[in-house]
């Protein structure tokens, strides 16, 4: 078993498979991609995450060759791909609508790309059969796309795009049309197939959970720019901006002013008549600079009594409780009206919960629980 962590982006000697070099794409007046640079490495499962209209689909279509950059270059394996038409690129795409050919059977759909390469008949059959096995579609080979279910269609689309063994596979919202349960199963299937084939995957999605689950690295995009590119845990634990912190998962944002506390952290003056909060931070702040403390609800502890050793503790009363079964999220209103979310696992029966609506409670968290952000 290989124990070394897969992290080619940390290795300066590693050559990226894909390089965006100061790429800008404009549609008339509208700038879809704004001077963007990005490296994606071989065997990565890279997720482009962002709200609709953020430019993620444009990035993908430029990789596939359906759009050309207005400025800048895109390199694939060290080669500028701008002059190469879509049909000559070692890149295949799985379309959001799947774009299966309705007049061809599942088998012929998968064979479609291979036939264009005039592959010998025997090799072609073998390859198609292998793809059918990989996606568990053997029994459906003779059916037409309209005769199979949505999940099966999704797998046909995947098999078809993988059949040519592309250097790079692009997936445009691949699981968008599936219901939640099927989507979760398929996510693991995708990861499995990516690992088995060793293909580089770039996935476009607006579903942050999906991106976090499947990807080795996630790029959070907004208005044609990359907000942050990092592994899912780093994106979640150490977002570099309020936008990213807010986009990924649930978060409490507390605005205040930073004040050096002598050590490696800061005091944050955040409300009139309240004790200053304490947070450790690697980011430098000037005294008096406005800042945002981003803290995840599950890192906020909720107790009936004031904890004695907590670095930060604030009092409030329970405003609302969202019961999710395994978890409960408490919306605690502070005296100044701010609402802080605290999440706890429901390890006990709900009837034995020690606080309920309108109860006074204490919220507490450590100095390292949150992230201090400038903007």
């Amino acid at each position, binding site marked *: 078993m290989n124990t070394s962590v897969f992290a080619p982006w940390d290795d300066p000697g590693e050559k990226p498979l894909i390089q965006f070099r100061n790429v800008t794409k404009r549609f008339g007046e509208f700038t879809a991609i704004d001077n963007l640079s990005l490296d994606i490495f071989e065997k990565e499962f890279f997720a482009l995450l962002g709200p609709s209209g953020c430019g993620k689909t444009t990035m993908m279509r430029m990789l596939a060759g359906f759009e050309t950059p207005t400025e800048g270059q895109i390199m694939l394996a060290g080669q500028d791909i701008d002059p190469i038409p879509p049909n*000559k690129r070692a890149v295949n795409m799985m379309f*959001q609508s799947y774009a299966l050919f309705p007049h061809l059977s599942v088998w012929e759909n998968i064979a479609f790309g291979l036939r*264009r390469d005039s592959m010998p008949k025997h090799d072609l059959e073998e390859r198609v059969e292998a793809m059918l096995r990989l996606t568990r579609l053997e029994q459906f080979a003779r059916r037409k796309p309209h005769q199979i279910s949505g999940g099966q269609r999704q797998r046909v689309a995947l098999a078809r795009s993988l059949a040519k063994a592309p250097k790079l596979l692009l997936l445009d919202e691949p699981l968008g049309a599936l219901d939640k349960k099927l989507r979760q199963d398929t996510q693991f299937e995708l990861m499995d197939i990516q690992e088995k084939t060793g293909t580089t995957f770039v996935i476009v999605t607006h579903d942050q959970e999906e991106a976090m689950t499947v990807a080795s690295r996630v790029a959070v995009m907004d208005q044609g720019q990359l907000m942050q590119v990092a592994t899912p845990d780093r994106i979640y634990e150490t977002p570099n901006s309020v936008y990213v912190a807010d986009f990924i998962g649930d978060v409490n944002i507390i605005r205040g002013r930073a004040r050096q506390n002598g050590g490696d952290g800061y005091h944050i003056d955040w409300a009139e008549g309240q004790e200053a909060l304490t947070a450790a931070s690697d980011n430098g702040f000037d005294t008096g600079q406005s800042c945002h403390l981003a803290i995840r609800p599950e890192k906020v502890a909720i107790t009936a009594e004031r904890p004695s050793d907590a670095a930060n503790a604030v009092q409030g009363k329970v405003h609302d409780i969202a019961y999710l079964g395994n978890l409960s999220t408490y919306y605690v209103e502070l005296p100044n009206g701010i609402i802080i979310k605290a999440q706890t696992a429901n390890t006990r029966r709900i009837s034995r919960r020690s606080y309920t609506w309108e109860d006074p409670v204490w919220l507490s968290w450590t100095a390292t629980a949150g992230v201090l952000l400038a903007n």
Partner: protein
Amino acid sequence: MRRAFLIAVPYLWLLALFLVPFVIVLKISLSDAAIARPPYMPQFDWAEGIWAFLRELDFENFIFLTEDDLYWKAYLSSVRIAVVSTLLTLIVGYPIAYAMGRAPEEWRPTLMMLVILPFWTSFLIRVYAWMGILSNEGVLNQFLLWTGIISAPLTILNTPTAVYIGIVYTYLPFMILPIYAALDRLDGSLIEAAEDLGCSRVQAFWLVTIPLSRPGIIAGCFLVMIPVIGEFVIPSLLGGSGTLMIGKVLWEEFFSNRDWPVASAVAVVLLLILVIPIVLFQRNQQKQAEAEQ
């Protein structure tokens, strides 16, 4: 009760305006020509009874059709003209439908309107207009003479060429509309997928666009071919005496020759010839409807 009534209306319509006239024509085709009014024998007479009447009917008009080679030549020529002009209409119509399908969304209703626009003028007037364009002193010849491309006027009117021009012009919308409907439904990402999988533009067209517009092509071809086989106005106005078409033969048999029984036999055979493509057309439509479910 109400449902039965609703169903009854179209069936009564068919009965009164198709089935009854057809039975009358069939009966005439089995009669003999006579100098009388109406010009055929026998007439049904209550006094003699139905058996005496039926005994006088026979197939000699149909046998006559096989003996005179005018008729089968006319049928064959009609079918040939129909097939050739259907192909010509397809060649002209497909690119138009394709361009319409790829035109920006906001232009499509206008383009559609332009295709349908000729229907607002009488068909007969449009064919007469073509006579004005194609005749020796017509607009086309004057234009070509003026540009100096030709030095003597071309004889187009009263030739098969004029018939083809007239047919292609008249039936073009029937070809364009079903093909456009098929292309309009075509998902653009299918073409991108084909290119992504290694097709050139041309290959993607042949392997995806054409097969997926096939129901439209088939529908368009039938919609053109079926009426063209029996076409009468265009060959008689533009074709002159050289163009042999069954519609014209039928007309002459009926009005010039006043041989109603033979004319009726010609009509019955024409109908039988047309039933084959009509049935095929219906099957195509049905298959398409099933595929869309």
